[in-house]
């Protein structure tokens, strides 16, 4: 388990980029042509190494496979970091470690699309506050990955809640807050050690109150009109920038020796969105604003991956389904600001019921520790008003749908053969207040074992402090 396949694939692609950069167009073009310039799209490559695991089978458990299936009294077998078999009756090699899950449940690991762990870490001192580059409304050039403090104790707490991967986002002060990064929840020495191999970048955008509150007295925007004008101008600039690069490549292919355009890191991120390589995650509460943003999306020909918070998604669930935009939602947060006033507890099931993509997210270092309970509340609230969603289907809100909205569903987010063995063994039905994650596996490695306090991870910050190694 020293090198996983994704790591290899990434290494290969890096080699090819290097080759391209080194010898691009060297053979047939004119001798005066300088080497072709290629932007390195992965300058902070993942150094993630899975925790070594052993071939393991969890037996006698209720399985939610994360894509709508429930298997009672089933088994899950995984080895070399990958899921091999899931079912009521599966073949398991003799050398496999057997975990008897009698009375317990197994699900895919929970993936949080909205976390600020590491960029707004604990302790929340001003010195640690690295989540919002709130100096100008468009800061698409910054990246959350350059600020993630891997020693945030919040990562370990989230692990005990069954979180196996998460997207770390910049905050919502800006129209464009910067790039996000997706991490495996295996905190180590560096951000790169946690970085999810092969996961695309996201970009944080924000609607509504926050940008206008932050910039209203600092040159604007001070209204929602100003917000939208800001997005539109930025997209227009990005289109122009993209054309420059396209011209450069076209000229180069034509044998000319064009001047390499100056890199503009802000527009480069936006160009990545226009090229479909970077996924838009947009903080947006109100239905009317989300609808305007879906028109902006069409005007400039890009795709929004997910609206975040999406308090009023229930009002436009049909439009969200039509436009293939996910909603990352809380179960019941409300009223802390005007744009959160029309929150209802049935938002998540109503979005799901309309055929749109529903995601349960946290935006909280406490909430991330019990996202299963958030889903449970939403599931129960839906059921109460006749929206009968099975628990197996509801689990999509916690793993498959977030994985899709982060662009990592090929690798994780469901219990399917060949996928990463990102698995949680719960003490019982996870749609309950009392149920806890007993074991958490990431890429087949046992990274959390509630029964073995000696094995609990402790962040650098908590070493030698009051309560080191305590039950958290």
């Amino acid at each position: 388990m020293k090198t996983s396949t994704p790591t290899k694939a990434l290494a290969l692609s890096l080699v090819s980029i290097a080759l391209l950069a080194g010898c691009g167009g060297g053979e047939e073009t004119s001798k005066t042509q300088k080497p072709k310039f290629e932007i390195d799209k992965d300058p902070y490559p993942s150094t993630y190494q899975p925790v070594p695991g052993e071939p393991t089978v969890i037996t006698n458990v209720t399985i939610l496979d994360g894509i709508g299936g429930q298997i009672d009294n089933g088994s899950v077998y995984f080895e070399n970091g990958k899921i091999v078999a899931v079912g009521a009756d599966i073949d398991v090699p003799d050398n496999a470690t057997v975990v008897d899950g009698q009375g317990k449940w197994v699900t895919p690991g929970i993936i949080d699309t909205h976390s600020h762990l590491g960029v707004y870490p604990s302790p929340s001192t001003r010195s640690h506050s690295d989540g919002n580059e709130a100096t100008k409304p468009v800061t698409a050039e910054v990246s959350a990955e350059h600020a993630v403090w891997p020693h945030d104790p919040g990562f370990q707490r989230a692990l005990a809640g069954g979180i196996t991967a998460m997207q770390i986002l910049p905050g919502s002060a800006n129209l464009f807050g910067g790039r996000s990064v997706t991490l495996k929840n295996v905190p180590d020495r560096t951000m790169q050690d946690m970085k999810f191999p092969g996961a695309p970048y996201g970009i944080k955008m924000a609607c509504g109150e926050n940008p206008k509150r932050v910039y209203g007295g600092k040159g604007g925007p001070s209204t929602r009109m100003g917000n939208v004008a800001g997005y539109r101008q930025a997209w227009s600039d990005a289109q122009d920038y993209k054309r420059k690069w396209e011209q450069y490549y076209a000229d180069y292919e034509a044998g000319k020796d064009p001047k390499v355009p100056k890199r503009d890191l802000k527009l480069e991120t936006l160009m990545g969105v226009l090229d479909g390589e970077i996924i838009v995650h947009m903080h947006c509460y109100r239905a009317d604003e989300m609808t305007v943003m879906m028109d902006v999306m069409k005007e400039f020909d890009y795709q929004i991956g997910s609206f975040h918070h999406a308090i009023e998604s229930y009002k436009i669930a049909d439009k969200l389904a039509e436009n293939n935009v996910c909603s990352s939602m809380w179960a019941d947060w409300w009223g802390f600001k005007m744009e959160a006033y029309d929150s209802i507890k049935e938002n998540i099931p109503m979005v799901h019921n309309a055929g749109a993509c529903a995601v349960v997210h946290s935006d909280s270092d406490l909430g991330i520790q019990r996202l299963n309970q958030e889903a449970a509340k939403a599931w129960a609230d839906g059921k109460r008003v006749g929206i009968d969603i099975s628990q197996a289907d509801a689990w999509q809100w916690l793993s498959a749908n977030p994985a899709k909205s982060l662009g990592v569903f090929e690798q994780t987010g469901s219990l399917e053969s060949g996928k990463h063995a990102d698995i949680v063994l719960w003490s019982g039905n996870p749609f309950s207040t009392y149920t806890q994650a007993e074991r958490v596996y990431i890429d087949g490695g046992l990274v959390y074992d509630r029964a073995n306090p000696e094995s609990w991870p402790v962040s650098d910050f908590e070493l030698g402090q009051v309560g080191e190694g305590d039950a958290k």
Partner: protein
Amino acid sequence: MKKWIIALSAMMACATASAQQIAIVGGTVHTMGPMGSVENGAVLIRDGSIQSVVNADAVPEGYEVIDAAGKVVTPGLFGASTSLGLVEVGMSAGTVDSSVVFGETQTAPVSNVGAALDVQYGINPDSTLIPVSRVEGVTSAATGIGRGEYLFSGQGAVITLSGGADSVLKPKAFMHVDVSNNISERHGGSRAALWVMLNEVLGEAKAAPARLGPTSEWHGITTRADAAALKAVVAGNMPLLVTADRASDIRLVIDLKKRNPQMNVVLVNAVEGWRVANELAAANIPVILDPENNLPGSFDQLGATLANAGRLHKAGVAVSIGMDTHNIRLATQHAGNAVANGLPWEAGLAAVTINPARIYGVADQVGSLESGKRADIVVWSGDPLEVTSHAEHVFINGEHMGTESRQHKLRDRYKNLASDVPMTHVRP
């Protein structure tokens, strides 16, 4: 207090006229009183008050029956620490009486340490938050100022969530002071200044004459109004809620109580409370906390753990849970998580019912299902601390409250998105 008793009698007289008798029959009744839990029980309500809790087969004739078979019946929930009724939308919008900020220009300060501030004047029974919380089983709450610039955040009140004109159950129900890391610059940004000031003003309140009128001599550093308010605190007639997290800060709170045994001291937040649990129990100091607070948010919370509530209870400390405003309805979930991490289930339910009622001196009216108390009762679909359960019936003072809030109306309006008419014409 006298005024309050008169108001109550007037209300009772009013209710007697209707002579309403209701029986909630067949559920598992957790009385939170000396009767404990009664399987297949019945709660008898007469004229707004609890008459008795009996076996389901002992319900007399003449009662309107609410079927609670297979359900769980508890006292209404008591929000232990909220700003309910004082705030609509906190940030950049709406009514906010839960924070107090005087400008620089305040000329004749009525208060210079905040003790005189009194939230009873800010409580709005029509606040949207009231029905949103009530339909989830919250029937009363302590409400106070959440943010201010003074040493004390003023005098809070206990309210009922009936939404009626008589919503203030008990004005001047508590005083609050924060001695944790949140010390403002106004207090030197240091415990070295804050505690000296706190001891000083409590000391001078003690020394102040019983009646402090405009013609009385007064040389204290606080205003007369502050001293008058603090007089009730030092006499033990008004509980002093003290927010502290660090073990050493909590020890100072315990010392304060030891030096002033007549004072009614309550510890709030108490992230490291478990480290001094035995001392808290010995000093008879109850605690209001958020059991989910398990991160070292600051350097005075390094010992944060989900085991806090359970460990405090085990040592004999009375634990109350429910620190929120818009989402005080999640107190049951918080209590459930405390139970998942070591708090016995009964103590979890006590933490959201009888324990806070005792802290605020209203346990003679609310917090348990006992004869003569207000009939504030909830019928739950199942275990109230379980996230998948919900409140099916909510009674306040014997009145069967509606099960709808603004949020339900919004939900029902948007149930069918393929409406032929504009949504504003859809009236659920």
